[in-house]
């Protein structure tokens, strides 16, 4: 078949080839979000969660800021209350999923190879390999990275961004796209504050407010069991809110996509 020179035209299909198209160049206005395909898949994922009454939370942070340690402590604390499941995203290894499974919780590891973020399609494929029956809260631990994961909606309801006190209190100012997307910011490893003289929790919070982000800031240490109660209470409240939304046939998108969209003159 040749579509270049017209040699595949026959009297039978000629009318299909000569559709009335104006000659030359035409400009077409599109105004569609570049990540529309990812966003469509994210909406589909969210429908999966809402149908089952699941609260989906996307955990984002630098590598090594304590996402998995936070999950380990959280899963143990909530063991008798809720059924949780975890999706782990890493470039390589099953290490994190194995740490979660060791706590008796279902975990699926997404190995991204070289990709620096999870996207809605990767999460969808993972969901189909998991048993979501009876799950109350699904945690998605994104690839450790303060840049790329913020731009991809996975279908989660909430973004939780961790900032460990060893990283510097100006991270929200340095990575505004990431911290603007946070529905909650957790300052982690606070037990180390005693030996650090250059991290001020109030400054980190001020940098977050400079991004016009009203998200709650919680200070905790998962390893030393400090400040975990406020985080667990926040999770309980968010699950209750999700159940109330589901009962009314409503859903919730994470911070970044919903805010301001109504003010935009062009919408995706």
């Amino acid at each position, binding site marked *: 078949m040749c579509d270049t020179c*017209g040699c595949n*035209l026959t009297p039978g299909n*000629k009318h299909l*080839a*000569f*559709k009335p*198209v*104006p*000659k*030359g*160049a*035409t*400009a*077409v*206005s*599109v*105004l*569609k*979000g*570049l*990540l*529309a*395909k*990812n966003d469509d898949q994210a909406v589909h994922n969210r429908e999966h969660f809402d149908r089952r009454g699941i609260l989906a939370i996307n955990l984002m942070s630098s590598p090594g800021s304590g996402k998995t340690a936070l999950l380990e402590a959280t899963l143990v604390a909530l063991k008798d209350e809720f059924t949780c499941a975890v999706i782990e995203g890493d470039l390589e290894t099953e290490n994190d999923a194995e740490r979660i499974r060791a706590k008796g919780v279902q975990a699926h590891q997404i190995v991204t190879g070289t*990709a*620096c*973020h999870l*996207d809605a399609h990767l999460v969808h494929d993972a969901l189909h390999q998991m048993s979501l029956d009876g799950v109350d809260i699904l945690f998605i631990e994104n690839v450790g*990275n303060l*840049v*790329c994961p*913020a*731009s*991809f909606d996975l279908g989660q309801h909430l973004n939780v961004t961790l900032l460990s006190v060893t990283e510097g209190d100006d991270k*929200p*100012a*340095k990575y*505004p*796209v*990431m911290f*603007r997307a946070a529905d909650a910011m957790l300052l982690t490893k606070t037990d180390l504050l005693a030996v650090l003289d250059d991290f001020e929790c109030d400054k980190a919070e001020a*940098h977050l*407010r*400079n*991004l*016009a982000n*009203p998200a709650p800031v919680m200070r905790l240490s998962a390893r030393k069991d400090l400040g975990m109660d406020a985080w667990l209470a926040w999770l309980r409240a968010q699950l209750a809110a999700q159940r109330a939304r589901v009962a009314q046939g409503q859903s919730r998108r994470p911070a*970044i996509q919903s*805010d*301001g969209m109504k*003010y*935009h003159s*062009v919408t*995706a």
Partner: protein
Amino acid sequence: MHELAVAQALVEQVDAVIDQHNAAQACMIRVRIGPLAGVVPELLASAFPLAAAGSRMEHAALEFIHAPIQVHCQTCGAETDAAMNRLVCGACGDWHTQVVSGDELLLESVELETTPSLTPDP
């Protein structure tokens, strides 16, 4: 780092537009992009030829419309310019603002070349 994934999504969308309009190829692609979208225009521009290789837009020019960062203040109602990591109201200084411009990542328009018309036999 993730600009290649964005470039691939862009190619898919432009491809769909070419199909919709029965065009032969795209010659100009305009993308509206704001700093808060988390996508660097220069990196997207260098990733685009990789994603577009062999497609009906490999010769297309990629043009960016840079959206300025602007916020709407919920306290005083002013609309002011803002910096990427300081989204506070430029008039009253309050941080209760909404971003009204600067986080877009939009395929705004495409210029298409339609098939050179082969005159059908009489």
